């Protein structure tokens, strides 16, 4: 294992300390229990709180700030945070309009957020994001994983919340956007969890894992390495099959790097995806290319499509000022 670190036990706290100092214009770090919150709150605005295991940086703390989240609760690497973190974050950011928890669909995350929701004094509700279409059998009661599409939900619901929308409106919008968003990824190499020190899975030099999860969970199938066009067409076909967009639907396309893939390759993948989508009569109206939901040092990428409508597009375009996403503000 080659990682920039001192002691494995200090990995998370030292990384968070650096993050908070680097972005002290926007966020404040609280410890014991750990959460990152916006420096300045807006009174009477619904508080948006997310969280999840660490190792997906910049998700979620990188999206705390004006136009997105009010607080984020980082757990240990790849491990859901605990209810006391969520309760403290809720208490610190609720300004009377209630709390909306945005949760990626994993058993641990859901259970911890549910327990926090039960114990939370503030009015609260939850949006569950399960955008990963790689899970073939949707009858799985745990359902799909929540992956990079979460960033889109956090951005647009964050924008709606800034307009003064109430908790029910934010929840309904979040559910609607989540339903219109689908993702799928491919891995070229495994990640290494710091505490484990070894690769989570093994891939041959000429192999890739199609449908990989953001924790290195095996995906749909192991395949021989293929061209960018073949990869984008397999991922997009799965997503489009699932979302079933009408012809001429405008799309937001997110090309997300999993941590170990250069930006040049992500742009190439975007180009390939755009050509495929145009051939299917789908229009790429907005795009975001970068490492927004990573899996430590995993090489690979995921594609996310969000079916836009006027309301979603408008809220995507509004100003945002967070450590990892910043425009117009």
């Amino acid at each position, binding site marked *: 294992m080659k990682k920039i670190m001192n002691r494995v036990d200090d990995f998370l706290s030292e990384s968070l300390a650096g993050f908070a100092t680097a972005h002290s214009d926007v966020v404040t770090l609280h410890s014991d229990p750990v959460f990152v919150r916006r420096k300045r709150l807006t009174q009477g605005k619904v508080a948006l709180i997310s969280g999840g295991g660490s190792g997906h940086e910049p998700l979620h703390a990188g999206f705390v700030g004006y136009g997105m989240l009010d607080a984020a609760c980082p757990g240990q690497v790849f*491990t859901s945070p*605990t209810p006391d973190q969520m309760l403290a974050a809720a208490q610190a950011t609720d300004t009377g309009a209630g709390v909306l928890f945005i949760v990626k669909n994993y058993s641990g995350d859901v259970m911890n957020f549910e327990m926090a929701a039960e114990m939370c004094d503030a009015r609260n509700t939850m949006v569950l994001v399960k955008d990963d279409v*790689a899970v073939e059998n949707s009858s*799985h009661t745990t359902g799909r994983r929540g992956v990079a599409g979460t960033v889109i939900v956090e951005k647009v619901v964050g924008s709606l919340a800034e307009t003064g929308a109430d908790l029910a409106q934010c929840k309904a919008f979040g559910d609607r956007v989540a339903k219109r968003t689908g993702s799928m990824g491919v891995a070229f190499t495994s990640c290494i*969890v710091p*505490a484990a020190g070894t690769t989570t899975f093994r891939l041959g030099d000429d192999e890739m894992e199609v449908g990989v999860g953001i924790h290195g969970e095996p995906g749909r199938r192991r395949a021989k390495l293929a061209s960018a066009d073949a990869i984008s067409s397999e991922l997009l076909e799965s997503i489009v099959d699932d979302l079933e967009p009408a012809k001429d639907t405008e799309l937001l396309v997110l090309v997300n790097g999993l941590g170990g893939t250069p930006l040049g390759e992500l742009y190439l993948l975007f180009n390939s995806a755009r050509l495929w989508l145009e051939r299917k009569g789908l229009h790429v109206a907005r795009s975001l290319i970068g490492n927004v939901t990573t899996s430590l040092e995993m090489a690979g990428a995921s594609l996310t499509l969000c079916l836009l409508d006027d309301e979603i597009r408008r809220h995507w375009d509004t100003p945002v000022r967070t450590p990892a996403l910043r425009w117009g503000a």
Partner: protein
Amino acid sequence: MNGKVVMDCIDAAYASIKQHADEIMVLDQTIGDGDHVFNLIRGLEALRGIRGDLESLDFASALKLAASKVLSTVGGSSGPLFSSLLLGMSRASDHLNGDPRGYAQMYAAGVKAVQDRGKTGKGSKTMMDVLIPVAERLIELADGEPPVALILAELPREAARGVLATRDMLATKGRASFLGERSLGHIDPGARSSEIMITAVCERIGKFLSVRSNAP
């Protein structure tokens, strides 16, 4: 039974989990994401860190404090689930009088709390495939009023049977569920770690009782 016994059982579970850590990690990396054993160790170490508090309490209060500590330090699925087990047992431990049936009911109440939290029963390739059969066997055995030593010897065997049963199950809950049919042929790491802790705790209680029965 008091906080001292709770702490002894925690120590026994910790020693056994540490001893089997590599095995659990490999099982978890095969069908999950590899974090399970670290979460268990973090939780058990946190409990050992409040040894003084736990040992000074009565049985029910020690279980309750342990539940709250686990909830705030473990995270993942293990945190809420093991916390629910301890809290469920704590809530059902009011009327213990040494009758094994009381302990059996208490354990079953803890397992029921885990089941409610995880919304999962038997057959989904999870720790429930160990916890539920062990609870059922314990109730059945306690009703027959055999020597306690016999009960304590049988429970680890029931747990081991539960672990083996997960090998041929399709995961439908937890991270392993994302694997679909690729989860077939592998035993579940959560089931295995539960078996390891149940076995360690049964051995510890067995020693505790034999020391006590030999006492003048």
